[in-house]
């Protein structure tokens, strides 16, 4: 079940981290030479998104995560601007989002698993 990002919430901030985890097994020999064994054909693609929400937007986001996403169980489509174009990704929470309330805004960060990408 794939949900859509609420239309009344802003896009994530431009700056983001996009890690790739090949999930390979790395064995370091005594000489220091590493050996790498592939376990999966595709890496685990992740993306860390950040938002600055007002209090009303944070309330919508909180309800969206708890109700629509069943506390992070479901995937959803999230768009973000990269290089001047909108990139839609189907993502899901990899861990709970973190919240920092400062300057009268709710700064939310979340690491997502990316399962599909379309631009």
């Amino acid at each position, binding site marked *: 079940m794939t949900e859509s990002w609420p239309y009344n919430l802003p896009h994530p901030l431009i700056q983001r981290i996009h890690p790739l985890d090949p999930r390979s097994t790395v064995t370091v020999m005594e000489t220091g030479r590493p050996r790498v064994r592939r376990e999966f054909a595709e890496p*685990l693609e992740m993306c860390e998104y950040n938002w600055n929400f007002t*209090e009303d937007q944070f309330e919508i986001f909180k309800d969206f*995560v708890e109700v629509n996403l069943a506390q992070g169980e479901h995937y959803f489509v999230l768009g973000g601007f990269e290089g001047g174009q909108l990139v839609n990704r189907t993502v*899901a929470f990899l861990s709970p989002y*973190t919240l920092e309330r400062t300057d009268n805004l709710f700064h939310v960060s979340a690491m997502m698993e990316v399962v599909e990408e379309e631009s």
Partner: protein
Amino acid sequence: MNVQVNNVWPSTLPLPHIDYSGGPTMGALVSDRTHGRLARRRRFYPAYQNFQVQFVLTPFQHDIFRAFHLDDLGNGTSTFALELRYPKNSAVTNWQVRFLGEIRSTYNDGSWMVDATICLLHPVVIIEPRDAVPTEPESGDPVQGGDDQIYYPGEWSCGAGIPSTFFSSYVWSLPEDVDPNEGIIAEYRAHARAIFISERDENLEGLTIHIYSEIFWDFYPTPIYAKSGLYKAQIGNTDHNDPEGDFYILVSNGHWKLTQHFCFS
């Protein structure tokens, strides 16, 4: 769901900094990333939040905080009600919270900076208890009078157990089997060394309470009927010549709080 919170953050202590950080606990279980494609399953419906908060306390307030944490919360294990600006910045919400883990206090420039992690369990609504129904002393019938006419028991007294030479922000809580909607029936749960003798205030502007410095070592829970409000109390003495001045008792939400502090010599 009805949640009864017996402890309330002392009114003499400041609320935490308005800025905080943290996040929710995740109700969905995510499989390990080394086990192929990730799978998710929700296990819990409640969404709790853990936040790191900070308090700035004077040394005196820090003593009160330590006493509250140790005595009222049972070394920090019990829940209590705390006002927070969450989830709205523009509104204060009462939350049932609980301390998690270590509390780190740093003394600097004459103040204590207290860092703590709290878990937000449920928002709670503080119910204003209904005014006590005045009754005739002998017959027990309701007193006939206007709505704003309130009578108090002519005399009540209570004493306490643990010897202490120091009064701090004690809270008298409602017994668990008392419905707060049945009027304020405060039980003297904290520790003090005094006798309270109330006097009826015909002007209805406040309940005058005289405190005498007699000492009771036993516990005498005595029902106290009173209306919500702020009452000025005076310290008198019969055995010692050590009056210490005035303090105030705030009657609210079924709890009695001392809002100023004094020492008994």
